[in-house]
């Protein structure tokens, strides 16, 4: 006497594994009907049949069809298997469709008990096309209204052209009356009653003729017809089967043993045929029962969801041998926020140590200095073994910056920048939403003023630097700029440096907003106004630093003052 659950297995490869699994089902009291793909060579088929000849009473082989992915053959095979099952095993109440690479994860009797407790329930994932997000490659609605006589795998060109032609000329066909297309996992478990009504339907010939030209009918034939006849549908599959972003099933390996065990699912697909440990563990007859728990694939879902995410979105700010996004597709130019300070270290003597003390961040000097990279502490290498060589940095300055930010994830990086530096990175900084850029424009004049060198040379140098910074500011103020940018003229800044510093520091991450209690030491600006005036007298007009009196202090009374410039 056969048990109440019958298994229909579709096989095309890995026959030794299939045999193992069939024996396992039979040992658990389930009759099995096997469908072997018609493409399989006769010798292989005969050997396989012969190998199972000791189980004649409980294993039957049904009429063979050619099964190709996305075509009708798989449905025909399932029908043939199910028909034979209903006819030859009258005790069967549920028909479970499985493949040769399916592996039962729980003892067979648990599945039998589970189904016995739910008589008349059909387990088949079945959703209307409008409501399924998982359809890969378009063709959601269209698979039901266009005709697909060509193989997607072997005749891709014809397949694509024929779809185009039908679209162009509106060659839509009628969906048979009474059917509402539904889709879902092709691994289902249906009751004898539902199965019988589907197979014995007087309109079956018409439905079959229609579904023959639907694309991937194994995902929609039973899913649609079950909606006509089933009394009680549980729209979920008892087979754990995960799909990647292209609609291919994920494969399970030995190292999935633990998550598979914890999933409490009855059957999983697809198992790699050489995953010896999985077959050993789950086909072990002494396998312990799992206390009748409900299937809970959540944990294993996450592993695969993460894989799909990694494949489609990647890790932002990472550039490597298998991820080199085109411009605009980086999904984040850098991996984490960082701060750029321009002019601050010119104006304050001890800005770097002060900033490090106040914020706890990693504070570098001028990373893009022409003479070499000024890493924190002026070390000759830094995180990721980045070299301080200017030549190496300039050879690929984008990768230099993105590597630095990537390698220091979890620690905020700050660095100084100015018109003395290599400017090639300007636009990348301006466009990067992770960059927080604070500029005291014109502060580059301070080191010139303090150097006290030959005035004619200073004048030339000042003109050059002003031109460079002006270009840089243009980028920061352009509509393409996506960084968090603040620009003060030097005159504005020194009017209320504490307030300005506070604004910048507040944006640093941290649980409590920091109060700036101690300010860095500003250089002595006595005579700076006169220095600027001298430049003007020489015909070089320094305008980026704002208005300074020849006396040295900024003009405090001049109305109206320009507002602080904030660009977002």
């Amino acid at each position, binding site marked *: 006497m056969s048990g109440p659950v019958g298994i229909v297995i579709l096989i095309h490869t890995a026959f030794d594994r299939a045999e193992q699994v069939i024996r396992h089902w039979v040992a658990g009291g389930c009759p099995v009907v096997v469908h072997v793909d018609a493409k399989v060579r006769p010798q292989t088929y005969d050997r396989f049949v012969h190998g199972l000849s000791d189980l004649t009473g409980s294993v039957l082989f049904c009429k063979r069809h050619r099964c190709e992915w996305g075509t009708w053959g798989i449905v025909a095979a399932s029908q043939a298997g199910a028909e034979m099952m209903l006819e030859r095993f009258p005790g069967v109440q549920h028909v479970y469709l499985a493949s040769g690479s399916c592996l039962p994860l729980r003892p067979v009797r648990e599945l039998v008990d589970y189904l016995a407790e739910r008589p008349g329930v059909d387990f088949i994932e079945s959703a209307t096309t409008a409501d399924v997000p998982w359809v890969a490659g378009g063709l959601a609605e269209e698979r039901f209204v266009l005709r697909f006589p060509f193989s997607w795998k072997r005749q891709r060109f014809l397949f694509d052209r024929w779809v185009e032609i039908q679209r162009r000329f509106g060659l839509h066909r009628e969906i048979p009356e009474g059917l509402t297309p539904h889709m879902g996992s092709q691994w289902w478990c249906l009751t004898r009653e539902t199965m019988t009504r589907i197979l014995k339907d007087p309109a079956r010939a018409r439905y079959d003729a229609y579904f023959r030209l639907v694309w991937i009918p194994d995902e929609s034939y039973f899913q649609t017809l079950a909606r006509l006849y089933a009394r009680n549908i549980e729209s979920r599959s008892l087979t754990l089967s995960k799909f*990647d*972003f*292209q609609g*291919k099933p*994920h*494969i399970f*390996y*030995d*190292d999935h043993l633990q998550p598979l065990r914890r999933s409490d699912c009855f059957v999983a697909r697809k198992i*790699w045929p*050489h995953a010896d440990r999985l077959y050993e563990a789950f086909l072990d007859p002494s396998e312990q029962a799992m206390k009748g728990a409900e299937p809970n694939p959540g944990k294993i879902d996450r*592993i*695969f969801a*993460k*894989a*799909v995410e*990694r*494949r*489609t*979105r*990647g*890790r932002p700010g*990472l*550039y*490597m*041998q*298998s*991820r*080199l*996004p*085109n411009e605009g*597709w*980086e*999904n984040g130019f850098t991996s984490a926020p960082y701060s750029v300070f321009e002019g601050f270290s010119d104006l304050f003597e001890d800005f770097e140590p002060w900033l490090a003390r106040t914020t706890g961040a990693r504070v570098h000097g001028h990373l893009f200095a022409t003479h070499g990279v000024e890493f924190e502490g002026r*070390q*000759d*290498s*830094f*995180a*990721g*073994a*980045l*070299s301080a*060589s200017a*030549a*190496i940095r300039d*050879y*690929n300055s984008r*990768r230099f910056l993105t*590597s630095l930010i*990537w*390698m220091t994830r979890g620690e905020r990086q700050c660095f100084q920048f100015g018109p003395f530096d290599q400017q090639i990175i300007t636009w990348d900084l301006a466009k990067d939403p992770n960059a927080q850029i604070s500029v005291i424009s014109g502060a580059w004049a301070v080191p010139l003023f303090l150097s006290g060198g030959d005035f004619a040379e200073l004048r030339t140098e000042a003109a050059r630097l002003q031109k460079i910074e002006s270009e840089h500011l243009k980028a920061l103020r352009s509509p393409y700029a996506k960084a968090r940018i603040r620009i003060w003229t030097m005159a504005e800044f020194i009017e209320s440096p504490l307030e300005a510093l506070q604004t910048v520091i507040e944006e640093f991450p941290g649980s409590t907003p920091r109060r700036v209690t101690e300010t860095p030491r500003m250089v002595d600006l006595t005579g700076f106004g006169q220095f600027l005036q001298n430049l003007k007298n020489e015909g070089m007009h320094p305008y980026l630093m704002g208005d300074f009196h020849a006396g040295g202090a900024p003009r405090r009374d001049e109305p109206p003052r320009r507002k602080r410039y904030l660009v977002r």
Partner: protein
Amino acid sequence: MGVWQSYRLRLERKRWRIRAFRKRRNLVRVANRTDRIREDDILVFSTFRNEAMRLPYFLKYYRDMGVGHFLMVDNDSDDGGAAFLADQPDVSLWSTTASYKRARFGVDWLNWLQLKYGHNHWTLVVDPDELFVYPFCDTRPLRALTDWLEASSIKSFSAMLLDMYPKGGINDVAYRPGQDPLEIANWFDAGNYSIYRNPKYGNLWIQGGPRMRVFFADEPWRAPALNKIPLVKWNRDYAYHSSTHTLLPRGLNLVYDEWGGEKASGVLLHTKFLSTFAAKAQEELDRKQHYAAGREYRAYAEGVTQNPDLWCKWSEKYINWRQLEILGLMSKGNWA
């Protein structure tokens, strides 16, 4: 890419294949056991010179991984390595005294052997000092990877070269035959790599690591290329263009994603910097058989005598593939 360029690349590919065919005459058969290759064997192709020290571990490493057969070209060794290989049941060996340089650094020889024996096999082209690491390599054999690639219709798999080095002078610890070189050279540079795209062939151009940091700090553009595509489901129409950096047809070079995602990739742990290195650099320098007249080796020879320590404070100590994955040197892609 226009029709014209596409046609030119096609001609170029034909040229490399014809060249490989001509260069087959360089190869003298020492032990041909290719009749033992089974239909679904994964094959290793390798050319070497005086690597007797490394060969035992090399074979063990790849046998454990599940490689079925080794096809090796001995370029004029005189250290007994060839005799050792000729006795191995899963090795087919050829030898040559011809110029390595004129065989385009061995590419022609291996292209020929791959054309003849690699068709429809997964082929792995590695040097004896390169250890292939791929996602899940500690729990899944190489066949799991190739089966997955096959199911995903992926024909080529990227594994960038990661230079490994010891802490301290590279001559300090002597390497013994059969020893895992990673016991000595177990440090690497985690994040100082430059990547550019090569518009002509579509491959990447990766440079960096300790060699650029130490030997090419003033001329980084001359640093050796680190991008490699060593694992390919071979077809007799394919050809390696320059070492395993570039393949033709160029579609095989698209091992990286351009739309933000990550494709699966591995790493070749390059254990060149062992105690065996200094002698080798000197020898290669004398032979002048290497890329760009041994510029690389000259830089090494000079560097090695001055300061043989490649280690720096920011070097990373090697643990396993998961570490490399987290650091972003390789990726699982959508293999889970």
